[in-house]
């Protein structure tokens, strides 16, 4: 059962553009929504995270938008750079510390 649905599976964005990755969840008990960034040959690394009591969180060029009523959240990467090319995973945490991950988005930034 896929509890966190992520789209798109792959994304190509021109340098300087905005990259947007979307996730939707079903379990209303989720209380923490992190995004992870994974480069080839490396494990995922925490990029940014949000709690459901806020609608937006920004860290540099990375922003999470959170819509609690729609049970959706998204990652926006402003001024996308070739170094942002990676696989991105959204996740959601239940009450027992476990994270449930989305299926991942492979982002490619082209010059």
């Amino acid at each position, binding site marked *: 059962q896929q509890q966190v649905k*992520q789209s798109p*599976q792959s994304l190509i964005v021109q340098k300087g553009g905005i990259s947007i990755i979307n996730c939707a969840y079903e379990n209303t008990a989720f*209380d*923490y929504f*992190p995004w*992870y960034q994974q480069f080839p*040959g*490396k*494990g*995922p*690394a*925490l990029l940014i*995270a949000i*709690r459901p009591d806020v609608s937006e969180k920004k860290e540099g060029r990375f922003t999470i938008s959170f819509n609690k009523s729609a049970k959706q959240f998204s990652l926006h990467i402003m001024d996308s750079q070739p170094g942002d090319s990676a696989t991105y*995973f959204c996740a959601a945490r239940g009450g*027992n*510390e*476990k*994270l*449930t*991950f*989305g*299926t*991942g988005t492979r982002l490619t930034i082209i010059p």
Partner: protein
Amino acid sequence: DVKVTQSSRYLVKRTGEKVFLECVQDMDHENMFWYRQDPGLGLRLIYFSYDVKMKEKGDIPEGYSVSREKKERFSLILESASTNQTSMYLCASSLLSPYYGYTFGSGTRLTVV
């Protein structure tokens, strides 16, 4: 620099072998996790542990077991390796507190032939 270290980067094992994947963290984290990563399926939780000698099944525990004898070490065991267990295995750890992210190791790519 804090770390989660997985003992092997690449492993090739034969069908039916017993396989041990080792993970060590140096951050004094209470929680430790084993995930497998497959294309198109994302990261799926196999087992996790929130204390020494404690373990809980994740979403896909069949064919796997775990051991946590010390706080810093969490081992994943494939009792009898099968070809459908060919995958990337990721270990992670976290503090036992809300809103704290995971720290992942670099992964072990296991091929079962």
